[in-house]
């Protein structure tokens, strides 16, 4: 492949934001018919690089050559005109438009000067069939799940005669089958001669689908490798910049002494919300990590939300510390020492206009109430403490959180809850979309908390993580709790997956 002329060459790219050097001297070359992975921790500059390539940001220095000709891409529109299409990490479509419109908007099919809806609907159905998706394309995008929305976003890019396709974490909200479909499509597109940039935190997927990879770290270019020629440990160490041993620090199985049943903290008895989660029983004990395994849409987030009072239970009883409670708002739950880190960081987590410090102290302050205002000095002290503890970058408590990378925002969210010192901490996909280093830190933190006699409810798409950290594991399927396992030596990934998939 490398003997061919590269489709795209980016050389010595520099991009600065006020106070931050997001990219310095970064290189990237793409060849037709290859899948190229962009690797790096959060904040390494992957997203920035993609945004530079797609014209969202302008570059401060460096050159971009497309098919041998230097180009200046100044807007997403120009990028598309140059054959560069992108599917972003957070679905960036218009949920108030129909599926067809989302696929075609900007390059609609016209007939006699008007939009030809019938043709577009048919075409959209065909495109989605390619992704093995059969849905009513006239319905609003918002009436479909995130996974389907992601597929629509991919279908949108398939519709253009793209030369370069950028997939920015396309798989993070897809389940196994959907990933399979996607890979099939990627292989097909590869055969057609497209250059594909693929970003993912799942190493398995990187090794399965990509040909070459570029590693970035802290905005700097580390190197370009053939996927086959670099092994996992080496890759990871390139990404995080040190030899990796911490991974093994986490005990491979539960640490809690199971002979003595720990004190119960929260007990849910036939709790359910109509249309969201069927009535379920769940007991959370102090010092225990309980995992929830289930596919997207299995009701795992809904379960977390009802335990936290974000959705109001319309059935069943809940007891905290033996006393019956009825959470009508998250506030009730927080006052009972429960914390909840939402999977939806952007819309339900961060307060974009506020600083890192203010974001961190928000929950503890809401417990204290208005009048008991933490002095600014105290706030800064707390913020600095957690910035160090969680290794948040940049380490400035007065930085606006919206200017932080996704992974660092996630750490701030964790800090917000750790500060409240909750007895039960509900973590909904805390490791999604963040790098291995941070993942490891988060899991270490969970173990430490459980040793502190805290109780943790851990939701993750990665079964391996759940198996490694949890004492007990509840499996959800179709908005229903179907099984609960003790995580003993015999339990394997296969056991869990069987329950998650069901009927096997």
């Amino acid at each position: 492949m490398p003997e061919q002329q590269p489709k795209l060459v980016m050389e010595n790219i520099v991009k600065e934001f006020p106070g931050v050097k997001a990219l310095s001297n970064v290189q990237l070359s793409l060849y037709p018919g290859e899948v190229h992975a962009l690797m790096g921790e959060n904040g390494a500059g992957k997203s920035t690089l993609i945004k530079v390539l797609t014209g969202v940001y302008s570059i401060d220095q460096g050159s971009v050559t497309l098919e041998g000709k230097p180009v200046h891409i100044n807007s997403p529109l120009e990028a598309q005109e140059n054959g560069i299409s992108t599917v972003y990490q957070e679905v960036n479509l218009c949920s108030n438009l129909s599926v067809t419109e989302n696929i075609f908007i900007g390059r609609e099919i016209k007939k006699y000067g008007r939009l030809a809806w019938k043709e577009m609907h048919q075409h959209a159905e065909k495109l989605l069939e390619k992704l093995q998706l059969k849905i009513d394309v006239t319905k609003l995008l918002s009436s479909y799940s995130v996974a389907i929305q992601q597929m629509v976003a991919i279908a949108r890019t398939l519709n253009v005669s793209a030369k370069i396709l950028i997939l920015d974490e396309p798989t993070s909200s897809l389940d196994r089958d959907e990933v399979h479909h996607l890979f099939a499509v990627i292989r097909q597109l590869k055969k057609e001669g497209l250059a594909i940039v693929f970003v993912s935190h799942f190493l398995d997927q990187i090794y399965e689908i990509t040909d070459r990879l570029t590693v970035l770290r802290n905005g700097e270019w580390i190197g370009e490798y053939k996927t086959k020629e670099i092994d996992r440990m080496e890759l990871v160490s390139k990404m995080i910049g040190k030899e990796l041993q911490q991974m093994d620090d986490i005990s491979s199985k539960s640490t809690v002494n199971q002979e003595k049943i720990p004190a119960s903290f929260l007990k849910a008895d036939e709790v359910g919300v109509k249309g969201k989660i069927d009535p379920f029983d769940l007991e959370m004990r102090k010092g225990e990590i309980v995992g929830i395994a289930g596919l997207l849409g299995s009701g795992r987030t809904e379960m977390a939300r009802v335990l936290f009072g974000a959705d109001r239970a319309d059935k069943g009883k809940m007891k905290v510390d033996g006393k019956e409670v009825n959470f009508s708002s998250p506030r009730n739950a927080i006052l009972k020492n429960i914390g909840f880190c939402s999977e939806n960081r952007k819309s339900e987590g961060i307060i974009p206009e506020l600083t890192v410090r203010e974001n961190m102290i928000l929950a503890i302050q809401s417990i204290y109430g208005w009048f008991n205002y933490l002095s600014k000095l105290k706030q800064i002290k707390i913020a600095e403490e957690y910035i160090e503890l969680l290794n948040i970058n940049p380490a400035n408590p007065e930085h606006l959180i919206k200017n932080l990378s996704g992974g660092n925002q996630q750490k701030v969210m964790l800090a917000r809850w750790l500060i409240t010192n909750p007895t039960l901490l509900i973590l909904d996909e805390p490791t999604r979309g963040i790098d291995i280093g941070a993942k490891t830190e988060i899991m270490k933190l969970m173990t430490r908390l459980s040793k502190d006699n805290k109780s943790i409810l851990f939701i993750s798409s990665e079964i391996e993580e759940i198996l490694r950290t949890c004492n007990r594991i509840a499996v959800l399927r179709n908005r229903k709790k179907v099984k609960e396992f003790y995580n003993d030596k015999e339990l394997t990934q296969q056991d869990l997956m069987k329950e998650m998939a069901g009927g096997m």
Partner: protein
Amino acid sequence: MINRLSLDYKQLPLLATISLFVLMFSFGSLRYTGFFSTQVFLNLFIDNAFLIVIAVGMTFVILSGGIDLSVGSLIALTSMVAASLTMEAQLSPWIVVPISLLVGTVFGVVQGALIHLYNLQPFIVTLAGMFLARGLSYVISVETIAIDHPFFSYMASIQIPLPGDNFISISVVIALIVVVIAIFIGHFTNFGRTVYAIGGSEQSAMLMGLPVGRTKILIYTLSGFCASLAGLIFTFYMLSGYGLHANGMELDTIAAVVIGGTLLTGGAGYVAGSVVGVLILGIIQTIIVFEGTLSSWWTKIAIGVLLFLFIILHRVIVLRSEKKQASN
């Protein structure tokens, strides 16, 4: 393939608005003699033709998540320009009409450009536009300028007969043509769909490579043009130019668009809904006139109460559909 008859939840507010109009009309017909006639219905169009036109422009602005407060003042400015050019400069209507239409259009372009290029908030820019347009019409003249010109008189007085002794004015025809064109623009051009997309999420629209900036400027241009056209219709209706014309009409327009089911947050709504919204405002006034004994303050309170009921109804519909969607 697609079940066209099924009730899509996004159309429910529109359906509710239409049903409410029908109900109010029947309510009036039962209560007052002489209410139930085609002419009463047609008068709603004759008396509100200008409001329909600005509501159409405003619908696009609100669909994109913006707002345009300058439309009422632009009507006054247009009427003033038309009147002074006709009466004082003695120009032919062939020159006056295009110039008048240009006034609002230019205003719209400038407002749109300020909003887009300097990232200013539409509320403030169009508020300044509102002051400016009204101020400029005072600068032309503080007095009303009566128009005495065959063309304007003809446009004002011509009645297009309809079967059954009824008639409509030429303004109604213009307004209906505008509505048809607007529906076409909204649903069958890429400009229209881009407006919806911007209203849904401006950031997404930009990342999808849509011409966000150009479209935004165009939206305000369109609204300015509609305001000018409405200003001309208003001039036909009043046969005069006056700086106090259409005072506060921007709020009537926004109320009509909201009653018509368009969300002020953008992204959802229909041009047709706004037309029904205008008709509902019209019918409230008609009922109050037929009632004939209400003091002016009761008019205001009644409109407030009705606005409240509409909003509650819309909330109920939206909440229900959200629930329904959640349970799917």
